[in-house]
């Protein structure tokens, strides 16, 4: 893998990971808000929509980090 491609992949990994973390935080904040104020989120969109976005980013994050995970497992 060339240096350019490698650095691009790392950037994608960072970006997708950030998106994953941001949506998880957003989901948790929405979940807590909904508990305290029923309808705060669910009047406008179902909360499980956010969960689906979290799942999609989690999968993407997992795919992009699969190599890293595999290497760590080998070392382990």
């Amino acid at each position, binding site marked *: 893998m060339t240096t*350019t*491609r490698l*650095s*691009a992949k790392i*950037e*994608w990994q*960072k*970006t997708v990971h*950030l*998106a994953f973390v*941001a*949506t998880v*935080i*957003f989901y948790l*904040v*929405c979940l807590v*808000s909904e508990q305290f*104020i029923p*309808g*705060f*989120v*669910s*009047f*406008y969109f*179902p909360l499980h929509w956010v969960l689906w976005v979290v799942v999609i980013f989690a999968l993407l994050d997992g795919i992009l980090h699969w190599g890293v995970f595999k290497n760590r497992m080998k070392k382990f």
Partner: protein
Amino acid sequence: MTLAIFFRCSLFAKSGELSYTELAMIKQILTSFAWFRVLRAVCILVPVLVFGWLLNQYFAFGGRLVTHYSFAKDLRDQEQIISDLQPAGRVSSPEADLDSGVQYRRWRLEPIYFDVFMPRLYEKATVSLTYSNPSQKFISLGLRKGNPEIANTFDFQPLENKIIDHSKWSLLYDQANDISFLQEDNDFKSVQDFFNNVPRDKKVGVFNVNFHPPIILPDYAPQPGRLVINSTLRGRHVFYTYIKDEDLDLHFTWQDINRGFGADPVNVEIMHNDQLVKNVSLADDGQVTPSGLTSQPTDFRLQEADLPEGVYTIIFNITDDVFIRSIDTAQHLFVAENTLFLAAGEDYKQQIPDLDLAQTQVFSDALRLRAQTTHDTGLQVIDINGQSLILQTLGAPQAWNSPFFDITESAAAAAGLARPDITTITVPKNDVQLFANGFYAFTPDSYFNPRRNIVELTPDTPAVDLDYLLFSHYTPPGKRGKWLTTTASFDIRADHLQEGGRTLNFILSAPGLDLVDDDILIRDVTVTLEKKPFSFSKLKDFFARL
């Protein structure tokens, strides 16, 4: 830098060929750090902006929250600020217009209800309705007030009145009081001129305006003896009587059957010319649970001397748990208005063993009547001037229309027909609610019309030869193709708040909808909630109070 690369790439793309260098440039764009920074900013900004939008929807910093009734959400069964239109059997599932794709629901039976949940407290609610209505004369929107277990009362606002919309009479407008006046001939120069000289021999149609000029019966004289009404009545009733040179003397007996939750106090208001004359409140029997234990008969005598001549309104503000067992009055003119709940039915016999189940006969000036029962033992055939009104469905009002309902008095006279003034209604098994735009008397001699020449325009008002028409706070709906758009605004008060203090219950009413062939198509319901906008001074005051 990135923009420059983009610009150059687009130039190359126009030439139709992409060289290796150009492809490398595209790759450079996709891998450039600037783009990743933008992407990461978006990843953070999108949730922040969405959450900010949710906060604004909740707090309504600008003071307005606009919500549309969603047909799509209906199908997904998602929570909504504007609830589904209920009951489900009275409106169709969402349908779509084949040409335009516009979604709507067919409104088949009335009334229908919807709730608006307010995320926070608001001061004003404006409901905008887009609909198609080929033939229904009246549509109105109401906001429930008070406890629905005590009384089903609403503040109504008109949405459409085809009589006014189609009138070609000349219009006078009193801007100060927002009162409009329609007259066929130019008898009056201003609305005030009309108020100062209300003609007693002309019929005045009133719509959405509180117009109760003092009524004087010139031939009235007090009579000896008492009027005794032994028909058992259930729940809230409004009576009218006439007093001249005599005391108001009303003796009534009631019982509390304790079928519902909550206290059942008895409150009686006496009104004269829209002024409160006397208010009596009698405490509950102490049973606040639905125990089914019936209280002992309790009686009260209401007497008031030195009253000026005129019509008096007696309002029994009571829950449906309270049965008025008898009324005994010195007044010989005594009628009930609009709603009558004849309760001496088999279903209550167990709780009130001395209930007299004999048939009840009442006399009414109504030419359209609805009757409803909620118990099997109340299913029956009601006789109205020899015509049958069959009650065979529980909880569904059945309508009776006089053959004269659509014929004005002048048209009937021209055709040589005599429109009856009084209709005799015989209810064999009782346990029936009667609804009409009119008055009921328990003996033919005790009937009188407390409104005289003032005719309240409702869907149940028969065809009438009007001379004038008075209305207020009404703007005809705007028309676009077959769709009409109209709005009604309500100032929200504490007694409007239902279910936890954040819900508004609305009723859409189009009485007689079941009697016309065309359904009303509801295309859109938009609710705008308003309050004072957010201000830092308010925030400062809030913290100062802490």
